[in-house]
């Protein structure tokens, strides 16, 4: 932190010293923790995805086996991946996840953008309490918040009671265990993830441009479309990915609110793993999902850095 900082050690002794220096320990400890418990496990997912399921403990057949003394055989099994491509169920599940993730990201944006914008336009002393109100639900149990919707959406639940009572409908609506319920649950749970980064970009927008546009006679809607919206693109994209990526693998919401026709990859993985005890197939599904998520992840990193840079200014 202080003194002359040597970035490239010259002698072996200096190299040794820099290896055990305080800075190296500070960076190295979390680095190794994450390498061991976050990155390394993916290699095992890949490895198991290439093995065969069997009735044993653990329920897979290792593809590197010692047959005799010192003689090792390698027997790769691509069957799991073949199955993912051939069986319609898995393709539909991947597509289902993609559909739910993209539509709910869009819905989150439609609701979250005006909210973030309104907060950023409100007076200074209002902003913190308003933001707190957005974050507060995030601190209570996710599971319980999803569960709350069961009581609201079910056949004789609150929503139907209300609508029947008001005379808007004659027969109860069937919402629980349909895709609509899944969308409600996802938007409800992930809205804060979008509002916060959006607010961070919107609150730092350059107001002089807006004033210039207003002076030149642009109408409010046009000012928004031509000035505010383009400037907030990094926030939109960073926030969207914060919703899209985890929703792709969501399990709890489709399981509790969705019906039998809600096919999503997270739910399918859970079934393959816990009910069918097919660890290799579950691993293959996980590998495919990971591969699919790399692109949005890179996008997210890129735009998050943009948002951060803007914040620094």
């Amino acid at each position, binding site marked *: 932190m202080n003194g002359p900082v040597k970035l490239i050690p010259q002698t072996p002794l200096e190299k040794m010293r820099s290896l055990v220096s*305080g*800075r190296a320990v500070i960076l190295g400890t979390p680095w190794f923790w994450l390498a061991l418990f976050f990155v390394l496990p993916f290699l095992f997912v890949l490895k198991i995805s290439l093995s065969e399921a069997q009735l044993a403990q653990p329920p897979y057949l290792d593809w590197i086996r010692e047959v005799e003394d010192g003689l090792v055989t390698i027997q790769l099994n691509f069957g799991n991946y073949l199955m993912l491509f051939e069986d319609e169920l898995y393709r539909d599940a991947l597509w289902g996840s993609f559909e739910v993730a993209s539509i709910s990201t869009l819905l989150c944006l439609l609701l979250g953008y005006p909210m973030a914008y309104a907060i950023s336009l409100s007076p200074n002393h209002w902003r913190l309490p308003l933001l707190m109100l957005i974050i507060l639900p995030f601190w209570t149990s996710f599971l319980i918040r999803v569960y709350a919707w069961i009581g*609201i959406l079910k056949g004789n639940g609150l929503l139907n009671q209300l609508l029947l009572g008001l005379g808007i409908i004659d027969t109860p609506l069937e919402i629980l265990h349909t895709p609509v319920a899944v969308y409600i649950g996802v938007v409800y749970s992930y809205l804060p993830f979008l509002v916060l980064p959006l607010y961070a970009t919107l609150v730092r927008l350059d107001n002089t441009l807006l004033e210039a546009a207003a002076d030149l006679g642009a109408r409010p809607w046009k000012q928004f479309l031509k000035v505010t919206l383009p400037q907030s693109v990094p926030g939109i994209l960073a926030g969207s990915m914060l919703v899209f990526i985890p929703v792709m693998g969501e399990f709890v919401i489709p399981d509790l609110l969705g019906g039998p026709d809600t096919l999503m990859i997270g739910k399918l993985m859970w079934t393959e793993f816990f009910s069918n005890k097919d660890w290799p197939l579950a691993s293959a599904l996980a590998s495919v999902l990971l591969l699919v998520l790399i692109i949005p992840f890179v996008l997210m990193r890129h735009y998050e850095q943009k948002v951060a840079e803007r914040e620094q200014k």
Partner: protein
Amino acid sequence: MFKRYPFLFSVLLLGYAFLYLPIISLIVYSFNESRLVTVWGGFSTKWYGELVNNGPLLDAAWLSIKIGAMNATLSVVLGTLAALALVRFRNLRGHQSLGVMVTAPLVMPEIIIGLSLLLLFVAMEQLIGWPAGRGQVTILLAHVTFSMAYVTVIVQSRLAHMDRSIEEAALDLGARPVKVFFRITLPMIAPALMAGWLLAFTLSMDDLVIASFVSGPGSTTLPMVVYSSVRLGVSPQINALATIIIGVVAMAVLIAGVVLYRKEMRKQQEG
């Protein structure tokens, strides 16, 4: 404001209603005498009584609190180290890769983290005999891995916006870096550490998916009990539990919010 931007502020109000109505309905129905959501059977606290006598649920809650507290403490230590490295040691080798490894758990679907860690633990047990079986330890290791990422984000933003002149002054006066860290940096980032601790605690208390993968027989956490009872339908006991959790969280956030708000206002008045 409402008059100037009627549309925006209507959506804001609508959004808050959407966020809070379900929570309010849970609280109201936790005091419902009747088992049915549809019928209001009068005010009663009987579900709270049943909750207090629900042995398995209390055991699970206690286990979750224990794991949550250990997880939060470890996550704050690791997350602070990671944040320091990310903000201050930009030239050190491994800086880039640490940045990627810290961001990824924030968005990585829980189901992938859970499955991959389970496979790691199984392989480690076969290779080195540790961890022998799965339970509290494996849940803790898994929770720290994703919680520390959240702590890092919180501490990182605090460190990045921190005024470094006091640290520099102390260093100029000859204080050793370690001393500067403990006497100056740490007190200055204390609110972020507190927020990080609480967030890591709630993340752990709330995790169903990852814990389901890496737990073993005999280590059932609170979300696992809640999940299996929720799968059977609406249960007033869960409403009561939810109300308690929401009450505790709301209190904590309210206190923290008031403290933060006052500080912010004072800063604005001074500035």
